[in-house]
């Protein structure tokens, strides 16, 4: 059901259908990406498809034109619980699907990047498709380049640091720009986040409880687990609440959480926390709030402290600063809080002291203490072992000229690890491949962050990277020969035996090169970006004729070759940046000392 793009002049509004069949965190990330796109293309008319249990919050977003919920239980329960055959359920599903397939959409977007999204993509007709889809053999295919990157890199957890919200935004903006021209300029600098993102209405008990005390500064704590299932213990949270309330008489604390965290109440009764609760400075809203109340409570807060991914994304959307706790850093780059000034505290055994002082210095007093002062404060407040086991990142939206998107900067500017270096290289490759532009390596790497451990790793990969560049250059030549041969052969009905042999030989050379690349990438993780992308790109080659496939394969090898040379450039430039630079004569004073 794929079609060619609709000509621009036929368009009034641009009808876009967006499928997000995953969890609530994914829905919030999707909404944030859509808001950015809607600001640039106000003409888009959005229909949002999500599971029924998440549809109510989406209906509260005024610029989402239509919400179509997937009644999962209605489709699944009869089969699982009542023994109804799958075939019998298809009629009900077809009725549900009908409004989505009546008229072809201008753009179909699957941002679930999963099976459900891929089948909906195959079912719903559209002029342009983004995300995963299905081919006629039922195989999973990627409808566009960024989706290949998601499948090859993001979903295989190869290190890269482009935030998923930025990937989605860029993906849709590129499609809009290609098919409908450049965006309206006047909206480019508008903030995406806002406290009134959702139209919510809160009255009654909770409103009275919290509104009476709006002279207080509220810290919101949301009990819950990160995307990886990591969470802090309830007793740690209780200690943190107590510390904040004791040391900051001008603050109150609101504790939110799902029903599974109701045992937190037990930690309050019989302790000094119960007095804070009685005085109204501690508000426990665990397992009892509606979505509207959740938004209301977060909007009252000066900050959110949590490891719960949905809470963190909701705070990001509402423009509330988040202190996000997690055990590892990698996924924060991809799925962390979006926006300026959020803080991510990483450590496997985070102490109450570390979290409290990070909140106090990195969120509460940030305006007064810049990075250097913050580090000094933390050194004074934390024990040596506490300081050694944590890492603090601050989020920042980069200007477009610096590469754009959200980045998480290590406030201590510790030496860059090999993993982080790989992450930067892979993201650079993605920008070169899909944006056609990437910032200079010098802009991304500071000399002071390169240490001997990184250089040691790079010395080990230098030769293999150079070899892969040669290999990929050769592949481009072979693929080019194959395309030329296919072009000649396409003119005649029957391919000569000689040409057939040559086609087979060239194909064999490419297969051999693929195997070599696979073997090398199993030894050197930096090359995985190429071998994984190669696998996904080759799977997604489409065309019925040998010529079409050869041309697509040539395009894929050119892309892989570009990627290999990006890695080479990073290796070379990292050595160059790390090299001590001679000080020019002008920098010495008359007495031979350095001029400062």
């Amino acid at each position, binding site marked *: 059901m794929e079609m060619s793009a609709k000509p621009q002049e036929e368009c009034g509004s641009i009808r876009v259908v967006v499928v997000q069949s995953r969890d609530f965190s994914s829905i919030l990330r999707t909404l944030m990406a859509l808001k950015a796109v809607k600001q640039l293309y106000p003409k888009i008319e959005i229909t949002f498809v999500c599971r029924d249990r998440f549809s109510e919050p989406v209906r509260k977003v005024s610029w989402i034109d239509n919400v179509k919920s997937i009644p*999962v239980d209605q489709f699944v329960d009869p089969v*699982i619980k009542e023994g109804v055959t799958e075939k019998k359920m298809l009629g009900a599903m077809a009725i549900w699907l009908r409004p989505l397939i009546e008229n072809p959409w201008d753009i179909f977007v699957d941002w679930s990047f999963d099976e459900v999204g891929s089948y909906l993509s*195959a079912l719903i007709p559209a002029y342009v498709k983004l995300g995963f889809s299905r081919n006629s053999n039922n195989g999973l295919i990627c409808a566009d380049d960024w989706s290949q990157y998601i499948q090859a890199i993001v979903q295989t957890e190869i290190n890269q640091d482009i935030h998923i919200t930025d990937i989605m935004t860029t993906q849709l903006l590129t499609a809009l720009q290609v098919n409908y021209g450049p965006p309206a300029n006047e909206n480019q600098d508008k903030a995406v986040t806002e406290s009134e993102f959702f139209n919510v209405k809160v009255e009654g008990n909770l409103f009275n409880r919290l509104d009476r005390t709006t002279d207080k500064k509220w810290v919101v704590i949301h009990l819950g687990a990160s995307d990886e299932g990591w969470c802090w213990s309830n007793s740690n949270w209780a200690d943190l609440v107590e510390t904040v309330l004791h040391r900051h008489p001008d603050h109150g604390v609101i504790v939110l959480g799902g029903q599974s965290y109701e045992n937190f109440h037990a930690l309050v009764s019989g302790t000094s926390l119960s007095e804070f609760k009685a005085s109204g400075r501690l508000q426990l809203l665990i397992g009892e709030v509606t979505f509207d109340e959740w938004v209301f409570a977060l909007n009252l807060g000066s900050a959110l402290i949590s490891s719960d991914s949905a809470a963190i994304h909701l705070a990001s959307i509402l423009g509330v600063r988040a202190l996000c706790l997690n055990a590892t850093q990698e996924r924060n780059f991809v799925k962390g809080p979006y926006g300026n000034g959020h803080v991510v505290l990483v450590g496997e055994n985070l102490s109450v002291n570390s979290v409290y002082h990070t909140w106090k210095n990195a969120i509460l007093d940030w305006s007064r203490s810049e990075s250097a002062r913050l580090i000094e404060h933390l050194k004074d407040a934390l024990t040596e072992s506490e300081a050694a086991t944590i890492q603090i990142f601050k989020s920042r939206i980069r200007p477009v000229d610096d590469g754009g998107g959200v980045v998480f900067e290590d406030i201590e500017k510790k030496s860059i690890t090999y993993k982080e270096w790989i992450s930067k290289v892979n993201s650079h490759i993605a920008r070169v491949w899909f944006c056609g532009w990437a910032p200079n390596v010098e802009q991304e790497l500071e000399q002071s962050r390169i240490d001997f451990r990184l250089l040691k790793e790079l010395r080990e990969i230098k030769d293999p990277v150079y070899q892969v560049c040669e290999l990929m250059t050769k592949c481009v030549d072979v693929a080019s020969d194959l395309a030329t041969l296919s072009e000649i052969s396409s003119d005649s009905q029957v391919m000569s035996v000689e040409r057939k042999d040559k086609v087979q030989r060239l194909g064999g050379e490419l297969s051999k090169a693929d195997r070599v690349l696979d073997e090398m990438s199993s030894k050197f993780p930096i090359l995985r970006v190429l071998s994984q992308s190669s696998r996904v790109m080759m799977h997604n080659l489409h065309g019925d004729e040998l010529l079409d496939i050869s041309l697509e394969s040539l395009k894929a090898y050119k892309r892989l070759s570009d990627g290999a040379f990006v890695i080479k450039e990073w290796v070379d430039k990292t050595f160059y940046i790390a090299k001590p630079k001679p000080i020019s004569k002008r920098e010495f004073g008359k007495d031979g000392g350095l001029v400062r």
Partner: protein
Amino acid sequence: MENQELTQETERLLFCLLQSLIRERISSDNKGA
């Protein structure tokens, strides 16, 4: 559409979609157990 014949292709894709949803449910039930 209830009175119309589903095309073979639509029927196949809807069937796959339903199976996906069922697999997800079974897997989440197993995790919860």
